[in-house]
């Protein structure tokens, strides 16, 4: 093992091998994934696993989501929720919260109410920045939009102790404006209710900034509450 070219080839191919195996192959395997409808069937009664399918009677290509009352999932985030995702990213929420439900029987994800089906690759195809996460210092958030109200989210962000005493989550009070209640216009309609113990004081109110509104909008949109051809509820 003295020759540079030979050594170099070995060094090159070992890494190339893993890159092809772990990245290129799954990329090829999964790039065909599209938003799907859970139970829409074609003329032959088979479930359709893609957004589009060919109607065998007319021969025309149809969109799964064109069907009345049926949505192909997952849907991409839009507007406020999409901006909220950026807030989630830059606050580093990823480092304490995962966004993936493991299958029933592997861990206690179902029993803790973090989801009623396992997360699958298709759930993430519309996600610009996939944050599966590797820590659960806090609970999993794949379905957090189904678990709490908007008010709960605001209070919890303002000071986690309000809703979750003993929590080690940092407060995000800097996403809120503590302001004097206007004497002429009265309390702001956006002000959130804060319990006495955590309230900043008489004559003051707590109003979420735009970033907090976006973040809550994002959190409320975290929900894998649809079935997919490959994954039904309680699976």
């Amino acid at each position, binding site marked *: *093992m*003295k020759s*540079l070219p030979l*050594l*170099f080839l070995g*060094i090159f191919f*070992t*890494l190339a*091998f*893993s*890159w092809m*195996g*772990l*990245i290129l192959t*799954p*990329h090829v395997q*999964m790039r065909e994934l599209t938003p799907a409808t859970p139970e829409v069937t074609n003329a032959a009664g088979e479930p359709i696993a893609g957004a589009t399918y060919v109607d065998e009677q007319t021969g025309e290509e149809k969109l799964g989501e064109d069907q009345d009352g049926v949505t192909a999932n997952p849907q991409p985030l839009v507007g406020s929720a999409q901006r909220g995702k950026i807030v*989630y*990213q*830059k*606050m*580093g*929420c990823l*480092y*304490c919260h*995962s966004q*993936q439900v*493991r*299958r029933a029987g*592997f*861990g*206690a994800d179902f*029993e*803790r109410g973090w989801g009623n089906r*396992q*997360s*699958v*690759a298709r*759930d*993430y195809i519309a996600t*610009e*920045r*996939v*944050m*599966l996460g*590797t*820590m*659960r*210092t806090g*609970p999993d958030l794949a379905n957090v939009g189904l678990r709490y109200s908007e008010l709960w989210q605001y209070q919890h962000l303002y000071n986690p102790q309000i809703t979750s*005493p*003993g*929590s*080690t*989550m*940092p407060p*995000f*009070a*800097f*996403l809120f404006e503590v302001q004097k209640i206007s004497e002429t216009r009265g309390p702001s309609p956006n002000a959130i209710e804060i319990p006495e113990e955590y309230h900043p004081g008489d004559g003051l109110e707590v109003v979420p900034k735009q970033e907090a509104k976006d973040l809550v909008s994002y959190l409320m949109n975290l929900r894998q509450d649809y079935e997919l051809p490959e994954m039904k509820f309680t699976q």
Partner: protein
Amino acid sequence: MSTRPSLLSSFRPSGEPELDLKARLGEVDTSMRTPAMLFIVSSVLWLMAGTILALMAAIKATNPDFLGEQAWLTFGRVRSAHLNAMIYGWGNNVIFAVAPWIMGRLCRARIRHTNILLVAGVFWNIAVTIGIFGILRGDMVAVEWLEMPGYITPIVAIAYALVGVWVVIAFRWRQSNHVYVSQWYLLAAFFWLPWLYTVAQIMLVFEPAQGVVQSLTNWWFAHNVLGLWLTPVGLAAAYYLIPKVLGRPIHSYYLSVLGFWALALFYNWAGIHHLIGGPVPAWIISAGTVASVMMVIPVVVVAVNHHLTVVGLHKPGWASPTIRFVVFGAINYTAVSLLGSTMALRSVNEVTHFTHFTVGHAHHGVYAFFTMVMFGAVYYMMPRLLLREWPNAFLIKVHWWMCALGILLMVVALQIGGWIQGLQMNALTEDGTPVYTFLETVENTKPWLWARSLSGLMLLIGHIAFGINVFWIIFQKQPAKASEESQPTLLTPESSQA
């Protein structure tokens, strides 16, 4: 040298062939003196910054209100700033000091045009500084181990290339006939990192891949920064320093060949164990698990090889600061790798995944193995580059005891605490409801996290002792000259020598 000076010949690192070995090694040392000092001083400053960020994050983990008023000091950012300061600030700077020097010495090839190394060093540190501030101000890329914002990528890439090229040049024009195992590890590491980094930047930052391919790329990259960059450099240094200090050749050449290629083949695939149970194809997880378990081969091979080299020489080893740190690192390489292979098993991973156990494991690898070996390398290298001895053996002892005990406390606390956390998170009563509420599991981790903060304090003390010694040896007015006869700095009295 060459009669016709040309660009190519100006890069030729070969020394005068008629000089004897010692003089040629002296040439290598002289050529590396200035750049190595730049990199070491930078690395020590980053080590301090990273330690302070780490302590802040550690305290926040039990007292979330601590420094909680500003967005730029929120836990997610401080923690990421800590990680990046340690890996790209401390780790890479110390590698840039140690690796070209070891490569140069083994190749008997001095590093030429060291001004280029100095420029690269300055730009590297500017880039990392901007990157850390970028994370704190909210430009963070939400990808683990890749948080520094995309706008520093070009500087990082160019600065890295200007360092890495000297390692390849030294190897290409080596004057030695024999190629030693450390040289393979270094050559491979300096080739693997840019490839990993380029692919990760393209597939995660500039043109993000679709869906969970991002997560796969993330863990292929992040785990390989440890496995194919920090680990090979750490092993190269251990392979170089243990025989050098103890005056005994490495036990087996063939074992070292086997260890190298087994690592090259299996470590690549292992990172996917961070996604066990996740929404990725099951076959990939299986491949990652198999590779993680196969890592037992290179780990045991290296362990046997190192152990058989050291065996019987523990006493003189204990007297040498270098050997204390390097052997501690080598033992922990074995321990952390075997634990890592176990953690990749699905049944074990079910408990340890998502808990502080993983954090403990990461520090076990990056600190107890890599960082400790690098400390040992610095203790060996600086007296030889500066031709003077370490000014204070007591500070070395403080450094050693604080860091060795501190990191053991951290790893043990986080892994026991994390294991309990995992068990409680998964525990179900007979009718299928969780035994512990989530907040109860959080509460039960707090004592262990306090122990972690305490260990951080110990490491800080150790790092301060190290930092003082480093600045002292560089800037002292009347250095204790190292002459032919003088002994290297020893930690135990001469009489106890073998």
